């Protein structure tokens, strides 16, 4: 989508044009969903977060000044909301552990099953599941940068615009993410052998 269409769409959205909103959703829904899915690793939750992203866009389009591309803005909201969701889930799990210590009945926190991304080639399914397991353990920013780069194919410059960081910072984060993933995978294989 080029800048003119972006501008046109933004103007129409600001005027409350329902057709423009539908067009926006149809154009970007898979992009937003795929980003959320990469970070959350749960299909239903990712769809929920993707919808929340569009709700926020609908409610706050008036504040969008058009300095960045619409897609950049959407990526930014999606990443923030997906990371918030993961944090919330972790908090829930921690409280569930605390409650279980006091013997209070809580929903049982089942160990997360392997996540299989629907877009991954069949030959790579098992390996990708191992990679996603390791990805879960990365710090937020490294996780977001890795997902945007690997699953959405964004170059460092564009990721920088999404994350509001310099290209060099993004490259550094990507480098650290790869190193940390390798270390986690080595640890995984060491534990497998024991």
């Amino acid at each position, binding site marked *: 989508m080029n800048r003119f269409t972006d501008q046109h769409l933004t103007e129409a959205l600001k005027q409350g044009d329902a057709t423009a909103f*539908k067009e926006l*959703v*149809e154009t970007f*829904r*898979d*992009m*937003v*969903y*795929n980003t959320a*899915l990469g970070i959350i690793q749960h*299909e239903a939750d*990712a*769809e929920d977060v*993707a*919808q929340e992203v*569009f*709700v926020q866009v*609908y*409610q706050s389009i008036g504040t969008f000044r058009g300095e960045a591309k619409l897609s950049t803005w959407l990526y930014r909201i999606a990443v923030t909301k997906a990371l918030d969701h993961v944090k919330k889930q972790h908090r829930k799990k921690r409280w569930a552990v605390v409650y279980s210590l006091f013997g209070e009945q809580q929903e049982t926190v089942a160990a997360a099953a392997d996540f299989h*991304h*629907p*877009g*991954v*080639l069949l030959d*790579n399914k098992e*390996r*990708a599941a*191992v*990679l996603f397991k390791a990805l879960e353990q990365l710090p937020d920013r490294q996780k977001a940068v890795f997902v945007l780069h*690997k*699953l*959405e194919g964004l170059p460092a410059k564009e990721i920088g615009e999404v994350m509001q960081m310099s290209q060099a910072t993004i490259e550094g984060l990507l480098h650290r993410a*790869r190193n940390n*993933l*390798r270390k986690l*995978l*080595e640890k995984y*294989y060491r534990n497998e*052998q024991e």
Partner: protein
Amino acid sequence: MKKKDKQQEIEAIMRSLDGAGRASAGDFFFTRLQTRLQQKSSSAWERATGWIARPAVAITGLLLILLLNSIIVVRQVEKLADGTDQASLQAFAEEYRLEVPTFYDNTDKTE
């Protein structure tokens, strides 16, 4: 697993997302989104009336109003009872000249 094989496997895992396609959101994504938007955009007034109409809130509110009314009524009755007693006694005493004459009342008359 040999060290070399392990390293190769790790590299293969690192490349496992290469060429992955985009995951697609469900078929009725927009319909569900519209429903969510309608729920969210219900006006503040609708939300307030909805909250008030909840049985727990409505009953508590009603009980509070009744309690306040009872307190006010009891206080008013007490105040009225005190006031009427005094007034009626005074009126009765004046009617039948039952006031207790004082020393000053007598001196006024003699002068």
